[in-house]
C-alpha cells in the first residue's frame, strides 16, 4: 500500500495553484489535510501526476461570519471548526455533525472543504451542507463561481467541480431564529463510516431532512409539518427512493429501517429545538 509516483507542489500563492490546475487538469489533485486523499493514493484509487498542497496559504485558513453565513476556507481543519467558540451559536447542526466526522486523530488534520471535495456518500459534512442549503465556492484561473450544495454532489465521490477548479471555501447559513436542528447517525462503531446519517432542519412551515450513507450522494426532501402516520408514510417513501443496496455492512432493508427510525428521531428532535 504505497502511493504511485507524483510530483509535489507546495503552492506559495493561490495563482500558482490555479496555474497548475489549469495546465495539468485531471492529472492534478489538490492536497489539503490528506485524510481522504492519502488513503486513495495509497490504495492507488487515485493516481495523480501532481499534488498541489494548499495548506501554506494563510488566506484559506480562515473562518469568517457576517452573521448571515459562515465562510469556511479550504485550509480550515475540522478540529479548528469544532473548536471555534461561536460554532454552537452560529450553526448548531454543524456543531452536532462534526464530532461524527472520522476520529479526533483525523479531524486534527482533515479539512472541512477536503471532505466536501472527496464527497464520500456517507460523509457528514456534505450531508450537513445539503440540509442547511450551503454552497461551495470554486475558483480557477479564469473565474470564480458559487454552486449550491444541492447541485454540487452529483454521485459517488463525484462533484460539479471542473478539473481546473479548486474549492476555495464553503458557505453555510447561520442559525435562523425559530429553526431547530438535529443530527443522528448509525455506524458499527463510533468513528466508522455512517451506515445511515440524518440531518434535520425544522422551520416554521415544516421540516427538511437530508439522508447520507444510503444513495450515491446525500439526498434531501422538504416536508410540511407532518405527524403520525403521514410522517411514517413520507419516511417510508423516502427510504425506498434512496435505492438502498446490500453490502458487507448492512442489508438494504436494514438501511431503509434506519432511514425511517433515525429520520423520525431527527425530525422530532429538530422540532423540539425549534420551540
Amino acid at each position, binding site marked *: 500500500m504505497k502511493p504511485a509516483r507524483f510530483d509535489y*507542489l507546495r503552492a506559495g500563492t493561490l495563482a500558482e495553484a490555479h496555474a497548475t490546475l489549469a495546465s495539468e487538469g485531471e492529472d492534478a489533485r489538490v492536497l489539503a489535510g490528506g485524510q481522504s486523499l492519502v488513503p486513495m493514493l495509497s490504495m492507488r484509487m487515485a493516481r495523480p501526476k501532481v*499534488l498541489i498542497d494548499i495548506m501554506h496559504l494563510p488566506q484559506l485558513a480562515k473562518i469568517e461570519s457576517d452573521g448571515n453565513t459562515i465562510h469556511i476556507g479550504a485550509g480550515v481543519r475540522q478540529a479548528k471548526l469544532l473548536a471555534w467558540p461561536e460554532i454552537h451559536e452560529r450553526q448548531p447542526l454543524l456543531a452536532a455533525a462534526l464530532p461524527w466526522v472520522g476520529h479526533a486523530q483525523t479531524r486534527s488534520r482533515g479539512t472541512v472543504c477536503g471532505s466536501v471535495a472527496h464527497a464520500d456518500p456517507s460523509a457528514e459534512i456534505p450531508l450537513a451542507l445539503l440540509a442547511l442549503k450551503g454552497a461551495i465556492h470554486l475558483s480557477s484561473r479564469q473565474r470564480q463561481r458559487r454552486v449550491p450544495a444541492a447541485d454540487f454532489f452529483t454521485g459517488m465521490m463525484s462533484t460539479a467541480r471542473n478539473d481546473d477548479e479548486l474549492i476555495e471555501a464553503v458557505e453555510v447559513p447561520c442559525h435562523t431564529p425559530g429553526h431547530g436542528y438535529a443530527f443522528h447517525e448509525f455506524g458499527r462503531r463510533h468513528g466508522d463510516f455512517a451506515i445511515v446519517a440524518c440531518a434535520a432542519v425544522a422551520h416554521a412551515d415544516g421540516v427538511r431532512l437530508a439522508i447520507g450513507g444510503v444513495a450515491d450522494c446525500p439526498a434531501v426532501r422538504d416536508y410540511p409539518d407532518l405527524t403520525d402516520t403521514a410522517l411514517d408514510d413520507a419516511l417510508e417513501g423516502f427510504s425506498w427512493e434512496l435505492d438502498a443496496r446490500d453490502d458487507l455492512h448492512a442489508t438494504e432493508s436494514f438501511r431503509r429501517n434506519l432511514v425511517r427510525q433515525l429520520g423520525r428521531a431527527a425530525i422530532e428532535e429538530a422540532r423540539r429545538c425549534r420551540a
Partner: protein
Amino acid sequence: MPRLSADARHRIRFKLNGRTVEADAEPRMLLTDFLRHNLAMTGTHVGCEHGVCGACTVEIDGVPARACLTLAVQADGSDIRTIEGLAPAPGRLSILQEAFRRHHALQCGFCTAGILLSLECYLRDNPSPNEAALRDYLGGHLCRCTGYVPIIAAALDAAARLREVHKLA
C-alpha cells in the same frame, strides 16, 4: 519551494523530538516509512496504512496525526514528536508510560506508541478528562489485546498524577 519531481529524492527537514533531522525522500513517501526507514526511528508502528487503526499516530505541530496519512514532504518544516520523545531520560518512563505499565494497559504493544502519543496530546488540552470523553477519543485507536479497560484506567490515573505534578510545580 519549487515543484518537487516525482522521480527524484528531495531533502526533507523537520524537528523530531526537539532536534532537527533531515533525510531524502521521493514525494510519494509516507511519513511512517520516512521515520522508520530513512531516520531509523522504528517506535512508530505501521498497521493498516489507511488511517483506521491508529498505530502510527504521532504528534505534528501539537496535534495528534496519522503518520500513514501524511507525506514526508508535507511534514517538511514541521515539529514532530514520536514515542522516542516521551521518556524524560534513558531508563525512565513518563508519567503516562508508567501508568500504562502499572495498569497493564498493553500486552503485545503494537498499538501502544500511537495511543500514548494520542493521549499525550489529549491530556495536555484536557487535564481533567472524564471516562466517556476518553472512550470516545480512544475510538480512534484499535487495540486487540486489552479490551481498552486498562487503557482508560491508566489514562485516568495518569491525568490525576499529572494534575498533582502541575500543582506542585
